[in-house]
């Protein structure tokens, strides 16, 4: 079967939307720790943290441009360790996708459809993403192509529409409490780069696998720009303490803007963009996990796995968290930090060590 290919541009759009959706959903630089008015600095710092993780995640992929993590893992560590690593990644994708979907569903219920059960929203978003994953990565790539301009325009428009409300004095004083809060604020946004573990599956699907790392860095950079603007904007409009305490700060910020008598309630735009971004992200996570699982279980087509996965993933998203506050509790640096870091560092670390050992061996020979 010829392997489906996506352009690196499509990979860029996918990764950008995936990460920017997090900005829209809960602005981790503000809500996860106590960075307060220095949140935008934490966002800049998070870019470097994220970039480091990208090198760790994607670095091996470009050395094996035709292989997913399971197949190059087999070459480096052998069959069973590679399968185990594949399963760890599937677990990571499951947690990320389930959490993203849960947050979205909670936001929709609290903002628009108070009488609708959250189960319904989760299952329908998951089902939609399963359909996209079933159609294949090419289709997801094309969807990303179409959605990217709409997504970016909505986010940028709502940011710029908020400009008149800004009071820059809220951003002062800078570094009032030293470097600690900034560092703590940067932890969660950095480890959210665990999303980019999808690179380990997507790289061989790109037209130019060797450039996938650069593509991911560009996506991270672009989304960091949005993150910095959103963090600064939310603080400048809502004030540092309110921006860090509300559940969906970006949302609340946009809700506070009123362009004219007639144009208010711009948060609809943001919700739509969030839905688009979530759809692209979760489809990719589903696709990646199904691909990995198919390799681990030696199933001929990953598509066979998507049906059962829909059920499992939806129930996980439902039962992993009691409510939205538990999701927030999960995103404390002390909880999510070690958890996500281990999901990235354990498998990738093992692979890098194995790779380094075999490389030195080859050199000696």
């Amino acid at each position: 079967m010829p392997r489906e290919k996506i352009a690196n541009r499509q990979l860029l759009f996918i990764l950008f939307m995936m990460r920017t959706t997090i900005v829209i959903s809960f602005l981790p630089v503000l809500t996860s720790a106590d960075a307060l008015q220095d949140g935008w600095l934490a966002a800049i710092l998070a870019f470097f943290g994220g970039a480091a993780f990208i090198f760790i995640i994607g670095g091996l992929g470009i050395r094996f441009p035709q292989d997913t993590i399971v197949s190059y893992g087999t070459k480096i560590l052998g069959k069973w360790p590679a399968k185990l690593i594949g399963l760890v990644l599937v677990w990571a994708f499951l947690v990320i996708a389930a959490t993203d979907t849960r947050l979205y569903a909670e936001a929709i219920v609290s903002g628009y459809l108070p009488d609708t059960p959250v189960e319904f929203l989760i299952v329908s978003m998951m089902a939609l993403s399963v359909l996209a994953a079933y159609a294949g990565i090419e289709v997801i790539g094309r969807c990303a192509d179409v959605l990217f301009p709409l997504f970016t325009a909505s986010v940028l428009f709502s940011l710029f529409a908020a400009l008149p409300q800004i009071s820059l004095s809220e951003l002062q004083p800078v570094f009032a409490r030293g470097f600690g809060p900034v560092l703590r604020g940067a932890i969660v946004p950095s480890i959210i780069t665990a999303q980019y573990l999808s690179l380990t599956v997507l790289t061989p699907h790109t037209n130019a696998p060797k450039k996938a790392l650069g593509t991911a860095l560009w996506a991270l950079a672009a989304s960091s720009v949005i993150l910095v603007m959103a963090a600064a904007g939310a603080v400048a409009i809502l004030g540092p303490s309110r921006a860090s305490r509300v559940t969906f700060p970006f949302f609340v910020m946009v809700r506070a803007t009123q362009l004219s008598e007639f144009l208010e309630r711009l948060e609809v735009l943001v919700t739509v963009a969030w839905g688009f971004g979530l759809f692209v992200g979760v489809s990719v996570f589903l696709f990646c996990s199904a691909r990995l699982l198919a390799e681990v279980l030696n199933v001929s087509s990953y598509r066979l796995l998507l049906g059962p996965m829909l059920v499992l993933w939806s129930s996980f998203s439902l039962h992993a968290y009691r409510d939205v506050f538990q999701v927030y509790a999960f995103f404390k640096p002390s909880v999510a930090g070690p958890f996500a870091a281990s999901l990235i560092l354990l498998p990738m670390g093992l692979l890098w060590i194995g790779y380094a050992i075999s490389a030195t061996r080859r050199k000696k020979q």
Partner: protein
Amino acid sequence: MQRCTVKRPKPPARETKNAKLDLDQADISEREAISKETLLEPGLSQNISFLQQISGKSDDISVRRFRIGESISAAAVAVDGMADQRVMEDLLHALMVDSQHLKITARGRAMFDMLRERLLIVHEVREVCSIGDVFSAITSGDVGIFIDGVSEALICDAKGWQARHPSEPTTETTVRGSREGFVESLATNTSMLRRRIRTSSLWIEVLEIGSLTKTQVAIAYIKGLAKEELITELRSRLERIEIDGILESGYIEEQIEDQPFSIFPLVRRTERPDVVASSLLEARVAVLTDGTPQALVLPVELPIFFQAPDDYYEKVPIGSFIRVLRWLSGVAALTLPGLYVAVVNFHHELLPTELFLRIAATRQGVPFPVAVEVFFMELLFEILREAGIRLPAAIGPAITIVGALVLGEAAIRAGMVSPSVVIVIALTAIASFSVPVFSMGIALRILRFGFIFLGAVFGLFGVQFGILLLLIHLCSLRSFGVPYMAPLGPFIWQDMKDNIVRLWWWAQRSRPQLLVEEDNTRQSEHAKPRPPRP
């Protein structure tokens, strides 16, 4: 000219009583096989009688027996109303009178060649050797000439049936541009293309499809521009069709699509030769069907269905503006009623307060939920539209009166429908008619009902769900291998010059990227006009 080279098998014993009985009792496929396989005999009367036997008592097949020179018996066969009467008379004159001046001494084959080379003053003469070939020739307007002692027949081109004159296509009118539309005759249609594209590289291949109708279907493309794989694929898809009859291009369209279950048109139909010509120049391929004034153009992408010839004939700002309007109305035609239902049902807070109060006031006393109201009004509108198409022109205004005044006005006055719903329905209807291609407009209109349902049950979330579902479907469609959403997804920057907006002709230097392999340039780099330098 081609000589019959078919090896003559043992002639079937068709003159016996048994064979006649066989033919009478044979079913349609056996009859077709007999007519196709039976070769001509040297005897004139045998051939004539078999022809009459196989065509039954069809009165419109005329057989004129005559003599060439002094003693050679011959017969001319034609279908009334299909062969040109004057050409026929000229032919008979040549064979019966002019042949007197020519000393015909030879017999058989030699005489046959002589007639063909020196007497038959028509443009095209060919030889055939089976009854089936004679029949298919005379049913396309030619004259068949049988000569005693020769087991072949001469077919002389004499096509002259009545055809409609090219007129302005009623379904695709334009403000500016050609007023010429295709007609039902394949030859006229191909000539319209030839007149527009005069290169020798415009190739037109003709196939015969339909076991009983034997309809001529032409593939037109520019050799060297259209991809070879595309043409091979199209040819093989056409050859795969095994149907008894092709009466309209729609029969072919359904049998060559990539995904037969999609509601979206994967092939563009058009009545306009200028549209076909411009598509050929973009390396697309056209399929013309005899008896249909509509050509099929393929492969197509979604944006094509939002383009109209006027966009290219008007100046760029105007053309681009109306094109953007068309995209917006396409979206409105699809989602407006669904959005209205969603907002009024679930999200009043999204509307400015005064607007919402006004809508709420107009809904006062309406006994139905808003979704039911919108659904029934949409249904009513679709029925009115359908009735409007089928209605004789003379009573056309009646339906307008009944539809607009009686139903619309009375329903509002009676308080059964709110005026705001009528406004939404009317807006949607107008929007859906500004999508220039009918098949796309109707697809959007049908999908609209789904959006009303989603909006009614799940609010804006439902509408977004529907949009994403539609997007997955559209992104997975292909038309002859070309992604349907190109150049939006996959995004192709070079092709955006003629997509949602149109750039100036001098800026359109390349053809669509996915359609052309090598020579992609349409014009030179220095095409931009500028005033003379002082």
